[in-house]
């Protein structure tokens, strides 16, 4: 049998000073604390501040379980760790759920074991497609008087994409407990995604509205931004860019407050394009500069090129050709210095466009002046 994969979240070392043969005050305190932390993990959804601190809490409980093995606690902990990975889209979820199922079986808790297996099946279907999980799913099979209806319906939704709307709707009716809010939010987003695929944008937006309320209620700016981005995407693809601006701005604000540079680039790039289209030069410039900084930190040179282009376009829109050329030329030389020739080619093309637009007699002296200044020692 292959050795079990090392899981950095669960397979942690016991706390410092832990002695497996000594029951001292420290040990008792740790057990007491672990019980409290585990209760917190069980009772709160993986949303907002609880989501942020969940890995640390899980690791703490896992450390205590090294000293005092407890299958019941392990099952719950592995389920939570699996949920955490599933929400984040990480493949470790499958292994964690299967380990949780093992713990449940050791305690002869077959309902919990089935729940873990269903979740593992769901994770396989989500990451590798329903075909990869078919054998597993058939082995689990449908049972009369299903003991884990929520897990069963959510798994069915992954396994039968053509009936996902029905299964998700039924699951949402059952997902009403506060500690299941993250499942409910994910199910709402899944439902909206399926509806968008079926060209039912209005209904999708309604479900996303509910998801947004939930994310705001649990004070989760990351998920709020995610829902806003989905709403903006629906509006953009549906040809309603005006309606997309507000959710995009909200998503960008969320990304900025989270310090998530990747999302700043993604949302900011879209917002900048719309500001330019509406001739909101100041807003476009502000947004472009935010994107430029974030893209540079990420090493996204095409993002840097795009932000420089947008920033210079804001100047061109205000009839300031000089600064526009300076921004482009400076960024072009910077990108070339980084070996980022693809981004450089885009800036080069933009300079060519401006030259064609304004004429060589105006453009060339301006570029010459800029290049001279940039190359000056």
């Amino acid at each position, binding site marked *: 049998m292959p050795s079990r994969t090392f899981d950095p979240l669960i397979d942690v070392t016991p706390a410092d000073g832990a002695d497996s043969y000594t029951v001292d005050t420290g040990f008792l305190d740790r057990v007491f604390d672990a019980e409290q932390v585990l209760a917190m993990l069980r009772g709160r959804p993986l949303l907002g501040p609880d989501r942020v601190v969940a890995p640390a809490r899980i690791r703490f409980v896992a450390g205590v379980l090294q000293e005092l093995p407890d299958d019941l606690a392990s099952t719950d902990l592995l389920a939570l760790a699996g949920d955490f990975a599933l929400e984040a*889209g990480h493949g470790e979820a499958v292994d964690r759920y299967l380990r949780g199922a093992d713990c449940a079986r050791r305690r002869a808790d077959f309902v919990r074991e089935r729940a873990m297996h269903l979740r593992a099946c769901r994770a396989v279907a989500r*990451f590798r*497609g329903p*075909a*990869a999980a078919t054998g597993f799913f058939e082995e689990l099979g449908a049972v009369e008087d299903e003991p884990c209806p929520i897990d069963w319906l959510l798994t069915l939704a992954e396994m039968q994409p053509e009936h996902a709307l029905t299964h998700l709707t039924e699951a949402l009716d059952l997902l009403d407990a506060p500690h299941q809010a993250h499942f409910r939010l994910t199910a709402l987003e899944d439902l909206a*995604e399926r509806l*968008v695929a079926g060209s039912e944008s209005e209904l999708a937006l309604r479900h996303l509205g509910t998801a947004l309320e939930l994310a705001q209620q649990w004070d989760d700016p990351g998920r709020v931004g*995610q829902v806003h*981005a*989905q709403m903006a*995407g629906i509006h*953009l*693809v549906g*040809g309603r*860019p005006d309606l997309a601006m507000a959710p995009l701005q909200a998503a960008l604000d969320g990304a900025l407050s989270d310090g998530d540079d*990747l999302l700043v*680039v*993604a949302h900011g790039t*879209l917002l*900048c*394009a*719309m500001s*330019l*289209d509406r*001739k909101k030069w100041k807003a476009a410039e502000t947004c472009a500069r935010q994107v430029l900084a974030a*893209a540079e930190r*990420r*090493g*996204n*040179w*095409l*993002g840097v*090129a*795009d932000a420089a*282009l*947008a920033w210079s*376009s804001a100047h061109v829109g205000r009839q300031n050709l000089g600064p526009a050329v300076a921004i482009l030329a400076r960024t*072009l*030389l910077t990108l070339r210095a980084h*070996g980022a*020739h*693809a981004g*450089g*080619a*885009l*800036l*080069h*093309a*933009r*300079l*060519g*466009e*401006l*030259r*064609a*637009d304004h004429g060589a007699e105006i*453009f060339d002296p301006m*570029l*010459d002046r800029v*290049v001279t200044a940039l190359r000056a020692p």
Partner: protein
Amino acid sequence: MASSYQERRLQQQHGPETDVQEDARDQQLLEGFDEGMELAPEQAGRVAAQFGNAALAGLIGSQVAVPGAAGVDLEEEETIELVEEVGEELEDAHKLDSRSYGGGGPSAPVDDGNSGDGDSPWDVGHLFGGEDDDEDPHAPTRTGRLPRMPRRKFKAPTDDPFADGPDEGELQAEDIDGVDKLIGDTQARSETPRDGDAVYRAVEDCLTDPRELGRRILEPEDLVGRSGATDPVGRPIEIGRFLADCGHRRSARVLGRVLAGAAGHLFPDAGGFSGGVARMCSLAVCAEALEGGRERTDRAVAVSLAQDTWPRTVSMARPMAQQGRLHAPDVLDALIGGRAPSVPAHKLPPPSVLGARGLIQLLPPSYVPEIPSIDLDADIGVVSDDPELAELDAVLAFFATGRDATADAPDRPIPQEVMQPALHTARYLMNAAGKAHVEMAAAAFAVSSVRPGAPVRGPLEVVDGALARIARAILRAGRKLEKVVGNPRDQTDPAAVEAILNELREARQRLVDLRHWAFETVAGALDA
């Protein structure tokens, strides 16, 4: 059907180079066909190879059923020789026959029945019962394809606003040269080590020539017809489409959908064409970064853009299929012009899920049919409990269909139409197995084009052997099903028929699983 074959054989016998021993052996094989189209097991094994070829021939449009050894791992050397000899002789026969069956010439029209003089006895349709489809214009041909429809001819509009002509919006050489003089020209793409989001380079292949990245004036028409992975607008759209369909992370899928469906909003006038291209390329990088996985994801995305691999593979496989020597590894070798790198079966690369999805995107949609259940009494209508009503039904049935109710006797022979759904499915399944050779070769070629030197041959060798075993299993089950036709109903156990169908179902499942495994493993070579 067999008589036409005999005629050709007779013509061959008059040929100056006829080998008497070979003729005797083939005649023996031929007699097998005459006796109710039954083949001895070893003969079935010998001809099994051609089914993959027939499938491929149908797939690539030549609609030829030429015998050969394609796709089947026949164990005895002499068996292979026999199949090849028979194939050569049939080719000779085709030359004598006025109707060409392939070999590079124009394809003969497909006749799905058994009445034509030119019918090949090697055809899947005959072995798996294709005789009763003559009247059905929508029935699949013997190669499993739907009959060829008349090709529609599009007449180009005379006032096409997008017709090729002098492009006034294109950047002129002087525009770029003028910039070059002052700031230097753009160099070729750097191969320096990359870090951060710069590792996502799949989109950069279209960003080399500044002249193609700009327009003097941005017009809405500039965005029309921008598709394909070599276009600076089409490439990020393709990346977005791929991630929208196949991405694991929701945020990547959402951004991918925007890229694929809202490109028009990303080209404001103020930014020019180059600004729009930059925006789309930057968003493509963001979508990849949101998906995560760094180089693995980027290679998977790059492989999904290798759109020319399928047509190139098909054109390379065509002559091999016609010669009856279709094997996925050989097609790959021919495509890359040498023996592809390989690894032993126990060192195959770990699977790549996203890469496999990228490969599947390159291929035409595949369909592996489900095996239907067969009701041996399907030819008997529902009989009413009311004797008068039953009699009336019988009279009506007689006048409507010409079927005599007295033929519903317990010892009636099982008619062809009862077994036809299963026989058809077996034929489709065999075709799918044949097509899988080309699909796998195309997948491996795509991987090689993204990462030259990737060890892609190993998985193909495994696939080749496995497909041969699957083809043999389908052939065995198909032959058994064929034998059921005409048997007395009261001597045919439904459980036995169900067992045969289960054999087909098992072969189908093995084919589905093999395809799944093969795509993931071939894609895994991207990262090996």
